[in-house]
């Protein structure tokens, strides 16, 4: 295995930017997320504004790497994952949606909240890890067709 200080620094900074954005936007507060998901209540568009801005900022970078077929360090990258929509994708997204709607916490904010010492989020993350391991276990033993979860 090779180590490149630049890759490690960039990954650290990327994570820091991502996590800071979740905190600054208030998306680590489950009540803000639930306020967006509650379309029949006092609906708040916050999450859509955060997500729309993030997509707009990230899209040019993805276009550059997709066209080059490589990252800027010339490491080859295949971003053109145009696999068809399959049942695993649909079922997985639906199951995730139920859990997300129950508490208003998705993996990123859940990890940050747990790391901040929030006991409820620690329970959530522990169960998330168990659920992820269970899905991986079943996928290896049952004939479930699935996309490559490593590159959505």
């Amino acid at each position, binding site marked *: 295995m090779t180590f490149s200080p630049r890759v490690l620094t960039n990954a650290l900074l990327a994570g820091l*930017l991502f996590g800071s954005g979740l905190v600054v936007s208030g998306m680590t507060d489950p009540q*803000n997320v639930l306020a967006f998901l509650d379309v029949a209540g006092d609906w708040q568009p916050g999450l859509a504004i955060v997500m729309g801005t993030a997509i707009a900022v990230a899209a040019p970078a993805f276009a550059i790497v997709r066209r080059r077929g490589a990252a800027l360090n010339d490491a080859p990258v295949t*971003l053109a994952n145009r696999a068809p929509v399959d049942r695993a994708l649909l079922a997985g997204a639906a199951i995730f949606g139920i859990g997300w709607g129950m508490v208003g916490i998705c993996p990123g904010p859940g990890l940050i909240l747990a790391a901040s010492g929030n006991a409820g989020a620690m329970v959530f993350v522990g169960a998330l890890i168990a659920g992820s391991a269970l899905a991986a276990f079943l996928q290896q033993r049952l004939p479930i067709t699935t996309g490559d979860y490593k590159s959505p």
Partner: protein
Amino acid sequence: MAAIANLVAGGALIGSGAALLVLSSGRIAGVSGVVGNLLEGDVGPQCWRIPFLVGLLIPAIYLAALAAPVTHAGGVWWLAAAGLLVGFGTRLGSGCTSGHGVCGIANFSRRSLVATLVFMTVAMLTVFVVRHLS
């Protein structure tokens, strides 16, 4: 809801993080994928998943210092059940809000667009059932 400036600045920070990662190493800033792969001991090319996760968790210091109470919708078993579903679903469906919702859509992936529409719609239905029908 946070102020509009916070929403836009936060979104821009998230987008910059995803952009930096894909430009520098061609990887997808998907939190469920990072966690799922690390669970299997797959740190990724040049170990990128470890520093990414460390960076992601650093802002937790701010939340801890703030000590703002986070109110959860339900007790411990409710949180555990939700976590189990989120972990299972994101693994089976190859991504979560960050991987599909931000990176995938920014990459014009049809799979990610469909996944995002599905998990958002189902989450809205779930909130409706929990808050307004029970």
